[in-house]
């Protein structure tokens, strides 16, 4: 196969490219330039958008012995990922831009351009496994290294995308990949993993948003500031500079002068951007048992009706656990409902729910509403005791 290896400059994508080449594929490395002004994106050796990262990727390609190019995807990335990120925060949601990048950039813009240029597949350094099922469908499964598994951020890929994807690292542990990189003479063997969001240069999400969406306040006044309100009493506990600085489930940085009456920590429960209100309360009020989601993406055939069973789980964020659940899909409207068999905490609209059957990824949807369990019900009291 002719394979386009997306090379970020990190150790994983370098080893993935090397393995693809060693497997006999005709591999070409490509580094994606996602910012027209590389200095504006993460500096240092932690991201995937700097000149250093581009040079690291080029050096790795040289060592592997494959051609290497830089593709300018900055306009697409800005339109499909960065704008989406800003819109979501302006609307009080919590997006995951890595999923959006996989859905719209790596396995869409890059893949489609690659296919048009005569390539057969895109290879990346994601930790996930692909298997061909008996019916010929390509299935995606969690990586062997569960601690490193990245199937969550790939949960947006459909059958066409999976059919043209290669994840050469899915069967390995990160430790083995680093050792292999060193053996292969790849300088990036010891390079730290990337964290945070690549286009937020210093990791200060709220500071970045404050600058970028300063003029997008959805409030009547057009100003971002607003009240932090006790969810139980309706009492104003403090002020904030903008709802975009908050995420459901957040505990730190609330800067509330007074402790709660019961002395327990308070969490962000709800964000109401139009009124500019951030609602806070005790952890027990965060409990969610039911989720409404939309914009489903299915790895194979769309879910027909209900998915249930002992192996059915959902994952709600990149490093979240597996939660037993029953999942409903209304094919007519695209509405996805998730009944969680145990309470989840800190579920924010905008996050993506990825559905698994065992280790197999079934699909994903974007969370619209996380129904908090009303505090009066005994069930919540039980949940809060469990969590306490």
């Amino acid at each position, binding site marked *: 196969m*002719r394979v386009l290896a997306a090379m970020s400059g990190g150790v994983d994508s370098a080893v993935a490219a090397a393995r693809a080449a060693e497997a006999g594929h*005709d591999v*070409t490395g490509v*580094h994606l*330039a996602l910012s*027209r002004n*590389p200095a504006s994106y993460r500096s240092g050796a932690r991201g995937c958008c700097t*000149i250093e990262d*581009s040079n690291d990727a*080029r050096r790795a390609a040289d060592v592997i012995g494959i*051609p290497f*190019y*830089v*593709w*300018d995807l*900055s306009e*697409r990335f800005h339109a499909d990922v960065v704008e989406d990120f800003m819109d979501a925060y302006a609307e009080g949601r919590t997006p995951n831009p890595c999923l959006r990048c996989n859905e719209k950039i790596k396995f869409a*813009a890059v893949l*489609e*351009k690659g*296919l*048009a*240029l*005569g390539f057969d597949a895109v290879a990346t350094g994601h930790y996930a496994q692909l298997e061909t099922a008996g019916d010929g469908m390509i299935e995606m499964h969690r990586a062997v290294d569960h601690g490193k598994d990245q199937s969550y951020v790939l949960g947006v890929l459909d059958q066409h995308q999976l059919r043209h994807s290669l994840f050469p690292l899915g069967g390995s542990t990160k430790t083995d990949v680093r050792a292999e990189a060193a053996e292969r003479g790849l300088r990036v063997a010891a390079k730290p993993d990337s964290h945070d969001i690549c286009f937020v240069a210093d990791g200060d999400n709220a500071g970045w948003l404050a600058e970028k969406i300063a003029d997008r306040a959805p409030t009547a006044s057009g100003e971002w500031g607003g009240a932090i309100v006790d969810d139980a009493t309706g009492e104003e506990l403090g002020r904030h500079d903008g709802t975009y600085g908050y995420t459901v489930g957040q505990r730190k940085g609330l800067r509330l002068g007074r402790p709660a009456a019961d002395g327990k920590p308070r969490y962000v429960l709800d964000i109401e951007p139009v009124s500019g209100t951030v609602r806070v309360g005790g952890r027990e009020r965060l409990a969610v048992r039911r989720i409404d989601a939309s914009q489903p993406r299915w790895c194979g055939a769309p879910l027909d009706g209900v998915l249930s069973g002992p192996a059915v789980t959902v994952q709600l964020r990149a490093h979240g656990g597996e939660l037993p659940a029953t999942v409903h899909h209304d094919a007519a409207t695209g509405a996805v409902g998730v009944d969680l068999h145990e309470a989840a905490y800190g579920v924010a609209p905008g996050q993506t729910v990825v559905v698994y059957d065992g280790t197999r990824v079934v699909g994903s949807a974007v969370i619209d509403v996380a129904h908090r369990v009303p505090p009066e019900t005994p069930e919540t009291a039980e949940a809060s005791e469990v969590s306490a």
Partner: protein
Amino acid sequence: MSAPSEPVYLDHAATTPMAPVAVEAMTRQLAAVGNANSLHASGRRARRVVEESRETLAQALDCRPAEIVFTSGGTEADNLAVKGIFWARRAADPRRVRVLTTAVEHHAVLDPVMWLAEHQGAEVELLPVDRTGRLDVDALRASIERDPESVALVSVMWGNNEVGTLQPVEEVVAVARPHGVPVHSDAVQALGSVPVGFAASGVDALTVTGHKVGGPYGVGALVCRRETDVQPLVHGGGQERDVRSGTLDTPAIAGFAAAVELAVKQRTEHGQHVADLRDDLVRRVCAAVPEAHPHGPDDPGLRLPHVAHLGFPGCEGDSLLMLLDARGIECSTGSACSAGVAQPSHVLLAMGCDEEAARHSLRFSFGHTSTRADVDAVVEAIVPVVERARAAKRVG
């Protein structure tokens, strides 16, 4: 689709293989000891090589040996001319702050000029070119005559590195000289392909480099009149008449001189050889891909003979480059990269192309090792390559 073992190299404007005489002249010096500024026998031996090379170059470039200042290459020579003459001229008369150049110069001129504007108070005028890339001399004349006392220097390249357009250097001199304004010209791409004579042209400073004419990398020269004051960029031991300090690279200078001597001697036959190949490529590629069109002047007397710059509407230059590379054909978009990302060509933009057109071009450039088989390879590959590049652009 894997590349053949021997690539089809059509990027001689980027760099060209060293001529065997230059390799021989250079390697003969590599193991010899001697700093050309030392007074002992080893130093004298090295100095003799340097000075004989300087004389050889002077003869080939139509200048006096003392007018040659060796540098690390074309970029340094351009920087030395632009900054060094600007500083000296302004020091002599603080009114002289204007730098006049064209919008199609190489970055080695444009960037120092812009740096002077940003950091040294220079007032820069990028003079317009016509749709073939040729300077509007009337615009230059009007600009100088508006206030001749305030012009520090004029810099106009000899032949354009992207599209091959020759500039009317002698007309530029005729316009500038009556006002005492010095003229610099970057002849890096022109030397060896068209006649380049320092004295005959009347320019005050001329940039040349080794590796574009079959010499080694890392050596070039600024040819500069003795009466033209140039402030140094590099201070130190006072070599090269105090204009460019640093121990002279005797082997590279020997290789450089041998290459330039050969290139100038063979210029007529070489020019015809590359012109024939270039014209054949343009004709056959445009026949195979009807939308393709050459950029630059049609008149062979107005352009460099070895450069074919072709636009392929509906394609990204980057995609064409990659697809040709995969078939073992090496060429260039001709324009600069920023962090590996091709930028729209400032040359094509100055020629009136829109940004789309400034990204859809390829430069094929010929040299002394080019053959008819190279042209055949391009003609054979170009149709499927253009089809794929168009498909990639449609999905992008």
